[in-house]
């Protein structure tokens, strides 16, 4: 077998950003703004290595194909041959992951390894993480310019990237745990980057503590993985390959199901916490308090996908623990399904563009977890892959809008609107991201989301397929609303939100003439450059909204391209299954064996219809909403195309009034109410209860009980000492008297009792 230098040395990928972290941390102050270049350079190097890894991995897969005696399946004819050959399950090719590990420590014959496990999943994730991270590093040089903690920001970004990469390449669940916790720490640091404002530091704490709740599950689950291996092979281990094959072995044998079930449940809790699944999703929208590039990184490539990655990495545990092969309903799919709907419903009632995107992420992560839950491993991971690009695109687009168009505010209703005219390039890129998220045909999201739904149907999870379709309708609707509020209508930023400012020209003039006032309005926004010291910073964004510069636009172009192109790695309708070949594990009995997904023409049609219905509903609804403000609708800003669309969907007002207003509003509001009142209250009262219990424990048990015992002992000892020291008079004859008396008493006692 050939050796591949880059695959064998994949540990370099996380190591380089980790070194960059220390360099920036130690000498960053002396470097000033040049610290960014260290971060950029290191992540760039990692990115090159990741790309090299992809190339070598593809070669490796090709070699494995050759050794198994089957040629790489490319194109329709060869593919159909492969499908035909699938009758002989034993003919499945084997692609061995590349594992290099060294002993971390050993105790009593139990060896704990640390090392790398490189397979398609790891290589794919390395590429996603380094790509998004590189773009975010690049984007931040402009977005975070003049930030008061610029170096610190880059140091944290580097560490964030390094920890996520460590998690990705980890060869043991214990190592994965280390990366996982580091990722949590870094997101805490970055969400609370502007900690001078209380809400920001609160949000950071909330994110940290909520995910820590899930981490209880991870720690328990990781410990249980050790015992899974022990039960299966007699020798415990944290090695991921061993864990997977052991889980498969135990599952096939039907033994130790309780252990597998609890292990899966514990790890599912970890996923719920980390990946913002219902009911621990509440931290994710709050995490928007961090700088926007960080949000992009968290939502696209690092933090939240760590949970999904964990689910994919030790998938056999879930597969066997939850009996996913049986179809029906299982906890994993259920959690994902609920999250899809909840997340999408909540996105409707947000006025903050980043919060819309945050709830959208929750909803999309719900798809991924649901995908894993219904046995659509490849599709879920493919959705992770495509989602990373289009969600990063949307977040960075929102950042661009806020940075250059809305005075650092993210309020769509107050400070945006009509930006299509001012920021055409941002608008176009945002549209690409939206199209992919909504699942417009031939975009990346279309292929990946459909794949999840198709496999859900094939595997006998029809219920979740319907949930997914409903989610698709809602996604299309809220994204249409978001795009409408941000880019269409009239510009409401600056002074335009004042009642008398009727037309846009007037508003922008006023903002232009009065930059000081506009700047003041800007600083009311919550995503300012270091808000505490921001007033004196020459931001230069006080005037008219304008297009962002190329540093911000370049990542948007690239991500827009990927929002379309990423989909063409797995498109059953075009007979492309590259992603399946390269990423899905083909290691025989060591992992779940998946069926190659088949193309059904009906699925994409239904999904596209769902998307169109969603868009139609949103247009109708917001058109109706705008009907009250007739004047603004007649404004020249609304192009003829928009008017056509609006008129075309005029009929939908009927549905809107009758159905959508009747159902969607209350449902969304109910969901929001549930979220705010019930879940938040539940959490709050749990918190209060915990605080109360803790207070009670502190006051009565700790202070009075435990401390009482100790203090009482001390006081009693002191008192006894104070009394008994009086016995020690130092007078010999008194001692003698006592001794004689004691002897006398003993003699008496002897005489009496003997």
């Amino acid at each position, binding site marked *: 077998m050939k050796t591949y230098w880059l695959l064998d040395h994949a540990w370099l990928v996380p190591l380089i950003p980790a070194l960059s972290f220390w360099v920036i941390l130690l000498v960053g102050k002396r470097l000033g703004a040049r610290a960014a270049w260290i971060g950029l350079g290191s992540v760039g190097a990692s990115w090159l290595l990741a790309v090299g890894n992809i190339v070598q991995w593809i070669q490796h897969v090709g070699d494995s194909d050759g050794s198994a005696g089957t040629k790489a399946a490319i194109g329709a004819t060869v593919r159909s041959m492969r499908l035909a050959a699938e009758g002989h399950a034993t003919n499945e090719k084997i692609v061995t992951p590349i594992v290099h590990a060294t002993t971390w420590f050993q105790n009593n014959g139990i060896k704990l390894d640390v090392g790398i496990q490189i397979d398609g999943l790891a290589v794919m994730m390395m590429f996603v993480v380094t790509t998004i991270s590189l773009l975010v590093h690049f984007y931040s040089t402009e977005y975070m310019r003049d930030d008061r903690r610029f170096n610190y920001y880059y140091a944290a970004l580097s560490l964030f990237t390094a920890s996520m990469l460590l998690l990705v390449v980890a060869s043991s669940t214990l190592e994965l745990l280390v990366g996982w916790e580091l990722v949590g720490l870094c997101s805490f640091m970055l969400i609370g980057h502007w900690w001078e404002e209380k809400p920001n530091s609160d949000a950071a704490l909330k994110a940290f503590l909520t995910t820590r709740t899930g981490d209880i599950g991870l720690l328990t689950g990781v410990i249980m993985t050790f015992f899974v291996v022990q039960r299966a092979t007699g020798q415990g281990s944290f090695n991921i390959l061993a864990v997977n094959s052991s889980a498969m072995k135990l599952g096939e044998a039907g033994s130790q199901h309780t252990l597998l079930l609890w292990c899966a449940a514990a790890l599912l809790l970890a996923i719920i916490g980390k990946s913002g699944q219902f009911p621990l999703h509440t931290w994710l929208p709050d995490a928007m308090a961090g700088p926007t590039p960080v949000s992009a990184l968290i939502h696209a490539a690092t933090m939240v996908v760590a949970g999904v990655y964990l689910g994919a990495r030790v998938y056999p545990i879930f597969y066997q623990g939850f009996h996913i092969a049986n179809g029906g309903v299982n906890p994993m799919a259920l959690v994902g399904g609920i999250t899809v709907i909840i997340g999408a419903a909540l996105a409707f009632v947000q006025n903050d563009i980043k919060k819309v995107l945050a709830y959208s992420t929750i909803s999309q992560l719900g798809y991924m977890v649901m995908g894993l839950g219904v046995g659509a491993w490849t599709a879920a991971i493919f959705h992770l892959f495509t989602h990373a690009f289009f969600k990063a695109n949307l977040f960075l687009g929102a950042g661009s809008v806020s940075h250059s168009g809305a005075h650092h505010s993210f309020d769509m209703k107050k400070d945006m609107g009509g930006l299509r005219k001012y920021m055409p390039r941002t608008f176009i890129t945002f549209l690409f991201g939206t199209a992919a998220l909504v699942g417009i045909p031939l975009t990346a999201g279309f292929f990946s989301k459909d794949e999840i739904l198709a496999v859900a149907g094939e595997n006998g999870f029809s219920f979740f397929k319907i949930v997914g379709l409903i989610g698709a309708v809602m996604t299309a609707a809220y994204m249409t609303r978001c795009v409408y509020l941000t880019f269409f209508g009239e510009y409401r930023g600056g002074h335009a939100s004042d009642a008398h400012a009727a037309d846009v020209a007037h508003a922008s003039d006023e903002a232009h003439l009065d930059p000081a006032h506009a700047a003041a309005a800007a600083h009311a926004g919550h995503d300012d450059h270091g808000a505490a010291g921001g007033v004196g910073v020459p931001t230069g964004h006080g005037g008219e909204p304008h297009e962002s510069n190329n540093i911000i636009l370049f990542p948007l172009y690239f991500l827009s391209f990927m929002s379309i192109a990423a989909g063409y790695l797995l498109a059953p309708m075009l007979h492309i299954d590259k992603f399946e070949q390269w990423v899905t594990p083909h290691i025989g009995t060591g992992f779940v064996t998946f069926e190659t997904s088949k193309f059904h023409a009906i699925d994409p049609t239904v999904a596209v219809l769902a998307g169109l219905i969603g868009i139609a509903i949103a247009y109708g609804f917001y058109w109706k909403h705008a009907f009250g403000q007739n004047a603004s609708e007649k404004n020249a800003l609304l192009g003829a195309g928009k008017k056509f669309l609006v008129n075309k969907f005029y009929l939908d007002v009927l549905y809107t009034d009758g159905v959508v207003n009747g159902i969607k509003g209350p449902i969304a509001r109910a969901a929001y109410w549930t979220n705010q009142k019930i879940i938040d209250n539940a959490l709050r009262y749990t918190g209060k209860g915990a605080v109360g219990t803790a207070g009670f424990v502190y006051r009565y048990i700790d202070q009075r009980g435990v401390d009482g015992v100790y203090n009482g002992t001390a006081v009693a000892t002191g008192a006894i000492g104070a009394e*008994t*020291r*009086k*016995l*020690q*008079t*130092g*007078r*010999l*004859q008194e001692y*003698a*008297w006592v001794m*004689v008396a004691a002897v006398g008493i003993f003699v008496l006692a002897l005489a009496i009792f003997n």
Partner: protein
Amino acid sequence: MLLNQFLLLSAFLFCTGAYGAIARRHTVLVLASIELMLVAVNINLVAFGAALNNAVGQVFALFVLTIAAAEVGVGLAIVLLIYRNIHSANPDDLAELKG
């Protein structure tokens, strides 16, 4: 039996010694009283030895006398030194170890 009389004598001497050791206000006399208590014990040993027809009691008594002589030597030397230091031989003045 003669033993009882010896034991009564011994008990009387012991109590006298104990009283003296507790009540006397001069250290030398306290030491003398302690000697009295030792003598009482010796009488006991000899008496029991004779009664049980066993020589060990008398041997033991001889040992006690020897040790007591040495002990008195040391004790008197200490008393002498104390007197040199505090110009008093009253045990009540020796309360340095008061708690």
